């Protein structure tokens, strides 16, 4: 067949196609002006008919069931609003759905996304609703409430206080002659090195360092008392003590045991699954949240483990208990067609007893002080310890700035990865993070 002829035909076809396209779309922009007219308030059960609220959540399985349970209790508690829940375990999908005008009225996310969602116009400011109902927020832990704010306005309510603790395998420590977990960065590094067991060809049999499930830079930095950004969100703070030490520890460990060997361990099991190296006794130290304790308790995993605060920077006892607090949050979609209904459900779910039930069901620490005192937490594995960690004065949080996703996903991830793979020295990594982060913040 004569392809050259087709080639020419195709190219002249393109010209034709373009010309028509231009004409057709003429002022293609015109149609888009009213793209975001959502956020109206036609809900609220006017006229006696039940109004509908859709709630999408990222959780699945047992945790998803906890949300379904609170939805059911809400639906049974009143007869004006029906809430429909749906598990959508893909945050991106939720965003795209809201953008397409077919999203939920209410959904959850992580506090680190609040600023971006507020800025992009995905999340609805809650100020008016709070003022109208004189909603009392004094019971929320102040640091977590900050996480729902952007530009001084509240866009989301915090559910919980998430933070890492240091889990350690008691048996592995005992075998090496240790009776106590490490308290300082120096002790951690020493013990991690000693506890690592390798086979003849260098493959790691027991991972000493907390480099599973991923790269522990953030947890180490905040544990060592460092931060990424100043509280006002204006200055990058990678050049303060903490971050460099964290990166150095990762670098040294990787250099000694081989990046490939460590990555191999990262690929051998699935996080929060019985094949997870910590649960199968192949990891000595693990930085993880309260869900790990809950998972082990619920799945009957018999592991003799201990839980301690993250080690602090050697020689800085005043920084003991340093940690980073994160929160999960719920926000109302800006184009929700039933803002009032969504808000009613939100108030219900965030009431002290309900929040205790929801967070208790997931094994998380609630963001309300009254809820923390609920007896349910006496029965949840390690809840007492995580509450204690949460109340330490050295706990910090990342400020809510719109650049946060770029800071974490681009700057920290790229430079951190380069150091993890030994392609940059820790000093170079920190210098690059500091420089690039500051440029980002100055934008």
């Amino acid at each position, binding site marked *: *067949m*004569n392809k050259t002829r*087709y080639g020419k*035909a*195709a*190219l*002249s*076809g*393109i010209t*034709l*196609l373009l010309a028509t396209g231009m004409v057709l779309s003429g002022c*293609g922009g015109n*149609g*888009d002006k009213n*793209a975001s007219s959502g956020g109206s308030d036609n809900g609220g059960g006017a006229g006696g008919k039940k109004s509908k609220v859709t709630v999408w959540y990222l959780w*699945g*399985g047992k945790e998803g069931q906890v949300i379904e349970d609170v939805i059911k209790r809400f639906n049974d508690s009143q007869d004006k609003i029906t809430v429909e829940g*749906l*598990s*959508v*375990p*893909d945050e991106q*999908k939720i965003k*795209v*759905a809201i*953008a*397409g*005008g*077919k*999203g939920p009225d209410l959904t959850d996310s992580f506090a680190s996304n609040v600023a971006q969602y507020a800025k992009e116009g995905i999340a609805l400011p809650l100020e008016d609703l709070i003022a109208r109902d004189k909603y009392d927020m004094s019971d929320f832990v102040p640091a977590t409430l900050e996480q729902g704010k952007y530009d001084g306005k509240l866009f989301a309510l915090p559910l919980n206080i998430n933070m890492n603790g240091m889990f350690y395998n008691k048996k592995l420590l005992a075998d090496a002659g240790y009776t106590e977990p490490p308290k300082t960065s120096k002790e951690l590094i020493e013990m991690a090195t000693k506890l690592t067991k390798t086979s003849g060809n260098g493959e790691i049999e027991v991972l000493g360092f907390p480099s599973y499930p991923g790269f522990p830079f953030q947890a180490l930095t905040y544990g060592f008392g460092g931060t990424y950004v100043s509280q006002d969100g204006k200055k990058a703070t990678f050049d303060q003590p903490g971050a460099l030490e964290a990166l150095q520890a990762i670098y040294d460990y990787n250099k000694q045991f081989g990046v490939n060997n460590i990555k191999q361990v990262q690929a*051998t*099991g*699935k*996080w*929060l*699954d*019985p*094949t997870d190296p910590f649960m199968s006794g192949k990891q000595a130290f693990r930085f993880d949240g309260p869900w790990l304790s809950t998972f082990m308790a619920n799945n009957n995993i018999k592991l003799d483990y201990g839980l301690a605060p993250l080690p602090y920077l050697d020689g800085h006892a005043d920084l003991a208990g340093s940690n980073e607090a994160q929160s999960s949050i719920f926000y109302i979609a800006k184009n929700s067609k039933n803002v009032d209904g969504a808000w009613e459900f939100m108030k219900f779910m965030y009431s002290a007893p309900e929040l205790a039930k929801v967070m208790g069901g997931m094994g998380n620490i609630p963001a309300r002080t009254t809820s923390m005192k609920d007896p349910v937490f006496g029965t949840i594995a390690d809840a007492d310890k995580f509450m204690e960690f949460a109340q330490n004065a050295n706990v910090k949080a990342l400020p809510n700035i719109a650049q946060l996703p770029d800071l974490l996903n681009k700057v920290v991830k790229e430079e951190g990865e380069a150091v993890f793979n030994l392609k940059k020295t820790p000093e170079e990594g920190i210098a690059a993070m500091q420089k690039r982060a500051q440029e980002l913040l100055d934008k």
Partner: protein
Amino acid sequence: MTLVKRKVVPYTLLVLLSLVFAAPLLWLLSTSLKSKDQLFVTKPLYFPSAPRWQNYADVFHTIDFVRLSANTLLVTLLTVAGLLISAPLVAYATSHIEWRGKKPLFAVVLATLLLPYQVTMVPLYIVWSKLGAIGTYVPLVLPAFLSAGAGYYVFLMRQFFMTIPNSLVQAARIDGASEMRIYAQIMLPLCKPVIATVGVLVFLSTWSDFLGPLLYLNDERTYTLSLGLYAFMQTHYVEWEQLMAASAMFTVPIIVLFFLAQKQFIEGIALTGIKG
């Protein structure tokens, strides 16, 4: 010697290569029959001695496999139907009708082959969202009824249509047959192979399509298999062995389809590929 060269060497190569091509799928099968603690066993060619068929039954409890399959089948069949209705029409118009648009239109068909789908992806998404069609199957299915984005299939069909001697069409015209009748009673029956081929190709690609459902479907209840399995692995506590079993079940229908349609399928391609 020639026997070795003619038979033994090719056979050995064919068998070896078949093994290489089949190995990953056999691996899928073996993993789908493992128990949790056998998942990370480091023995190659490890096949569980006591296959755990339960994994397959469990899939139906963990995800709504029946609904996902039904959704996928619905979208796929509608798309195939849409395309098989609309594409032969334009293939006929660009092959056997002597009209002003015959050549320019074919040039446009070829040009659309070069147009990356990314160019139309964003505006189409916006149009569909304004029409409130996000979350429905309309954006996935409707374009097929207008052969939109289907330049390749139109091209394949048109090429095949060209192999039908024009004299046949002319003779029918002289006999006074209407154009629709020539199309339906002469062209289509003669072009069955390519219609079958294109039907199979469209079926295969729609059945496994990922991006379309990813963009347009939101509600789990409307998910297709691709998206459902993707969502399944995005959640925590992934049951790998079940995911493997589900993937195996997802793949089986298309293998069966290929077996059934194999003969016609190859025939349709053989002719379209060659004649100009």
